[in-house]
């Protein structure tokens, strides 16, 4: 019975619906899957964005008698300090006064500030006070923001001894790590130091202790710049001959001149990078040089040739290692090691006072009678292509080097993002794994495919496939907790075995040929003989190696190794990785080789054998040359697998990012690095994006490897299509 026209129509509609569902979902899935690369690339792209956006908000209004101005972290308010001791908090947008306070009735004549919120103010009498001034933001009940000034007097210093209205060249106060307030004043070449500390006496009362010290600079010529570090550990004084005196203030009972640095150029400004372990020196010819401590000596690490004209001022950001230089003609925002400009600024010529806000995202600038505010958008100043691929001279290192070190316990730590140790680690692990796996897998596959009995082939193929699905976490666990202690214990036996077994093999083979007259031409059961000889050799080695160990290596082979060759042995090393990672990639290379060999037409093989070639000749002269590309594809895919393997490397190496090729120490690969670092990386921070960049590199690398292998395989398939 034929279906009615209604039914046919219904069927057609259903067919249409089905088709549409399949096509749309198919296309959507394909697009989604292909979007993987795009979505990880998208995260890392902002790293390459140039840091230009600097908004300029200018206040054309006239302010008089202002000494200091600073903005808050959110860039919503700012406060000013006037000569008559008033602090005024104002809204940045509408200039509304939010809070006001008077901190001193005596007129202030000088202000110094090296870090946001901390202000040093001097009065006419040369007495001075040290303040912490900040603003707090809170949400009121009507959920509007409320701001308040928070002012704290930290220290009060008496007038300088023998002060007679001379000109004070440099005057500043800091708090050191032991909560001692230190004021340093420089008059001519005399350095006056005033210490203030609050201690508890034996009655439990607070007692104020103060002390005056005086030292004299040995510099000749004119003093051009001075700077007391933020943690009050060092005082730098420079002259116009390019000499910098480095006074060590860490031990206040023994203040001494550590050494004098020669730069041979006219110095115009000195400051330190955030963290106080590198010195920034600006010269009158527009150059800026950075020096860092290495073994108690200042070592030049970078010089910046900015075209700003004579450097007038250098101000570091207290968020990271970036700093602002203000020159005669223009200003630049630079980063310590990236050696590239973050952004050029067109700041006004006449600057009286300039200050960063607390998180280094904006500056407030005081001119003769106006204030301006500048906001930077430089989220990843520490990143540049040269920072991840070039040798970089980091603070406190003796020479430029490739270093990956993304975090530390300190705030003033500089992240180091060199990919080179990770790439070396990845290649090292893969290489050693390949050395172990490649010969075994290819020769093993040749044996099974060409010489083994049929029943063996039938068992081995699925066994290898099951081997391929063994979770890498299981292999990694065994490698780390079982294999690596074993290798450490029996390293000598293992090395000995590598010599003993080939010797045994060759000698027994030679004996066999010499004395056996007729041996069967058929192959296929050899492995049944090999395994016992393996075990025999193993027993022999375990018997011999303790004796060797005792008589030649003083009972401790690893110690002997490090003593004679200087090789450092780590328990989780490249040997362990070689076995574990090799084991993980043997199945894939085995299967691919087997597949390639099987694709060779049987008739051609039969023809070769019929012409009188033996099996081995047929294999090496006929089969291998034509299937080599397929085996090579297996090698490439295995390589890609090994380079991306995460868990084994994560578990069985020490994960230390080093650039050594030694088999006795570990490595950190790109893949393991991602697994280690991503959980702790702040969302959309530099580390987060750098890790995504490394994932993109890994993706592209493995994808193109697979592509090459795929093309080779399809060529091979076409060649022998029946």
């Amino acid at each position: 019975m034929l279906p009615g026209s209604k039914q046919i129509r219904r069927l057609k509609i259903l067919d249409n619906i089905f088709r549409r569902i399949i096509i749309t979902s198919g296309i959507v899935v394909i697009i989604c899957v292909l979007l993987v690369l795009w979505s990880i690339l998208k995260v890392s792209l902002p790293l390459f964005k140039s840091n230009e956006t600097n908004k300029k908000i200018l206040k054309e209004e006239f302010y008089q008698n202002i000494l200091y101005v600073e903005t808050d972290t959110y860039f919503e308010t700012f406060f000013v300090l006037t000569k008559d001791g008033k602090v005024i908090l104002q809204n940045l947008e509408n200039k509304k006064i939010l809070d006001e306070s008077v901190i001193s009735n005596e007129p202030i004549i000088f202000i110094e500030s090296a870090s946001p919120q901390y202000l040093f103010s001097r009065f006419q009498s040369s007495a001075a006070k040290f303040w912490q001034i900040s603003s707090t933001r809170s949400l009121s009940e009507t959920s509007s923001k409320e701001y308040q000034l928070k002012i704290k007097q930290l220290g009060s210093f008496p007038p300088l001894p023998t002060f007679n209205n001379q000109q004070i060249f440099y005057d500043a106060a800091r708090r050191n790590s032991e909560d001692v307030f230190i004021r340093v004043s420089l008059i001519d070449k005399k350095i006056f130091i005033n210490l203030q500390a609050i201690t508890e006496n034996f009655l439990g009362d607070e007692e104020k202790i103060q002390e005056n010290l005086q030292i004299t600079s040995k510099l000749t010529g004119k003093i051009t710049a001075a700077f007391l570090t933020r943690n009050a550990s060092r005082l730098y004084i420079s002259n116009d001959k390019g000499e910098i005196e480095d006074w060590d203030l860490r031990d206040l009972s023994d203040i001494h001149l550590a050494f004098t640095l020669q730069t041979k150029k006219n110095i115009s400004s000195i400051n330190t990078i955030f963290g106080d372990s590198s010195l920034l020196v600006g010269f009158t010819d527009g150059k800026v040089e950075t020096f860092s401590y290495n073994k108690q000596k200042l070592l030049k690490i970078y010089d910046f040739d900015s075209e700003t004209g004579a450097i007038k001022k250098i101000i570091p950001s207290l968020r990271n290692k970036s700093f602002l230089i203000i020159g005669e003609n223009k200003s630049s925002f630079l980063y310590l090691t990236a050696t590239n400009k973050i952004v050029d600024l067109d700041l006004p010529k006449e600057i009286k006072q300039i200050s960063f806000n607390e998180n280094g995202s904006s500056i407030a600038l005081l001119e003769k009678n106006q204030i301006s505010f500048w906001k930077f958008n430089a989220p990843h100043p520490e990143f540049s292509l040269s920072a991840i691929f070039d040798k970089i001279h980091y603070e406190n290192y003796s020479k430029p080097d490739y270093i990956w070190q993304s975090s530390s316990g300190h705030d003033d730590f500089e992240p180091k993002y060199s990919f080179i140790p990770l790439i070396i680690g990845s290649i090292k692990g893969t290489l050693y794994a390949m050395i172990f796996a490649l010969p075994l897998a290819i020769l093993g596959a040749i044996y099974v495919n060409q010489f083994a009995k049929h029943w063996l082939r039938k068992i081995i193929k699925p066994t290898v496939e099951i081997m391929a699905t063994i979770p890498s976490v299981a292999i990694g666990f065994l490698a780390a907790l079982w294999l690596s202690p074993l290798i450490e214990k029996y390293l000598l036996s293992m090395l000995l075995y590598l010599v003993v077994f080939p010797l045994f093999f060759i000698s027994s083979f030679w004996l066999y040929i010499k004395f056996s007259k007729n041996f069967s031409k058929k192959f296929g059961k050899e492995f049944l003989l090999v395994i016992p000889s393996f075990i025999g050799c193993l027993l022999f080695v375990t018997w011999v190696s303790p004796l060797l160990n005792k008589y030649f290596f003083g009972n401790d082979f690893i110690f002997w190794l490090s003593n004679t060759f200087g090789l450092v042995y780590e328990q989780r090393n490249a040997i362990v990785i070689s076995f574990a990672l090799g084991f993980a990639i043997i199945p894939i290379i085995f299967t691919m080789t087997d597949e390639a060999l099987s694709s060779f037409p049987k008739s051609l093989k039969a023809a070769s054998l019929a012409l009188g070639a033996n099996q081995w000749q047929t294999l090496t002269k006929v089969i291998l040359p034509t299937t080599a590309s397929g085996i090579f594809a297996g090698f490439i895919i295995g390589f890609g697998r090994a380079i991306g393997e995460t868990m084994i490397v994560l578990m069985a190496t020490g994960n230390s990012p080093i650039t050594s090729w030694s088999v006795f120490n570990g490595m950190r690969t790109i893949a393991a690095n991602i697994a280690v670092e991503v959980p702790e990386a702040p969302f959309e921070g530099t580390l987060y994006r750098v890790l995504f960049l490394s994932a993109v590199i890994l993706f592209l690398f493995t994808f193109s490897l697979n592509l090459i292998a795929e093309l080779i395989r399809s060529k091979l398939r076409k060649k022998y299509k029946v």
Partner: protein
Amino acid sequence: MSINKSKELFYVWITAVSFSTILLIVGTLIFIIITNSIGYFWSKPIELFQLKDNKKILGIVKKTENNLHDKEKIQLKIANRDFYNFDFIWINKDEIIETSKPQNIFLVERSEYGDFYGYLNFNSTKKIDITTQLQIELEQVKKLLAEKKNIEQELNKINTLIKKIDTKNNNSNQVKSEKTSFQKKFAILSDKQEELSQKINKFKIEIQEIGGNKKELLISNIIRFYSPNSLSFLDKIILYLDKLWDFLTGFPREANTEGGIFPIIFGTIVLVILMSIFCYPFGLATAIYLSEYAKNGWLIRLVRIAVSNLAGVPSIVYGIFGLSFFVYGIGGSIDQLFFNENLPNPTFGTGGILWASLTLSILTLPVVIVATEEALNSVPKGIKECSLALGATHSQTIIKVIIPIALPGIITGFILAIARAAGEVAPLLITGVVKSAPALPIDGTFPFVHLDRKFMHLGFHIFDIAFQSPNVEASRPIVFVSTLLLLLIVIFLCSFAIVLRERLRKKYKPQQI
């Protein structure tokens, strides 16, 4: 013998050696895992060592090794962490005067401080022996504990109801009275709970270690107790099975180094099921599209190559993709739209089982697509053309003819995908797996399936206790057992897939059509 022939022989032998090496390595791997894990539940005797310096040590022998001076030393598990602070000690064999296996030594598994080896005393000396009495009291305590647990659940329910009222911020009288009634109920129940706790805490037993130190132990802390030196072989087998059962169904204790792994297995299974739900329909649809509907142009060829190449991309790359796309991308948006009141605490904007399973499904999608397409293409063209010629529509042909024939092949692909997903750990590390999840992803509280929850996973469990456990030596056996379990699951799935595929191959050999 000719040179040629001996050369041939030599090379063949070299290939044979390579092959044997592979066999040996696989064998060793399996041998090591099995031998290290199979004895974990077997009860070993506790031995009493009398040392030269008049000290007595009670412990289970773990292994014997030679020390630096070539003298034998023994590693003992002495347990009693609350008395000794560590689980294992080494003693030199020549210090031992005498060893014995006293019958009255007990092994007590506790929920705190690990095992206890030593003597048990009851303060009240009753006529019945210790074992029977302790057994009776243990039963009683268990009943009380179950009662207490019920009350706790009730309390939790009331608490969430009160919280709900609080967040609504409704000040009407009706709501207020409702709240006070809840609070009253809460007070009554918590009193009851307190009473029960006191009752439970009255059940105590005195434990005494071999050195003579005594301590009171709450019976509610006892999980199991037995006297290992007086067990018969049959008892040991029963104990073995009992422990195995507890291991598979119990909850972990002591930072996962003791107790069972039920939530871990459960998390793994839920993860794999969710992954399958996301992955299979789309994988199947895509494969049908590629093999039946897509025109075979250069673009589709390119897509096909790209999809199959994605199977070789490292899993950690998928993990990082899942983190940015699912967790922070989609999860973050969901939080902003629907869970704004909880911010800045993330609900979906942090790793969880949903995101982990989605990541895994993207990871296995290429595998499924390639395998399914291969299976669909292996259906002989003649069959398809027959169906079309008989008047069936294209969709009917696909659903009723092609898919049923290709089904074993498709299922093989599915099973291989599950096997891969079950063993994959790297992407989970960053998309929501945790060392110890407070609750299961599926449970009795509304809405029953909690996709935002973090979860535990067998592979991660192995990684975690092998590397982050405070007591590596003590947790070693449990890692081996977990590894064996994971291997068994994966190998079982994989062999099943292989058997299925072989059957399919036999069934549809080309000459039969």
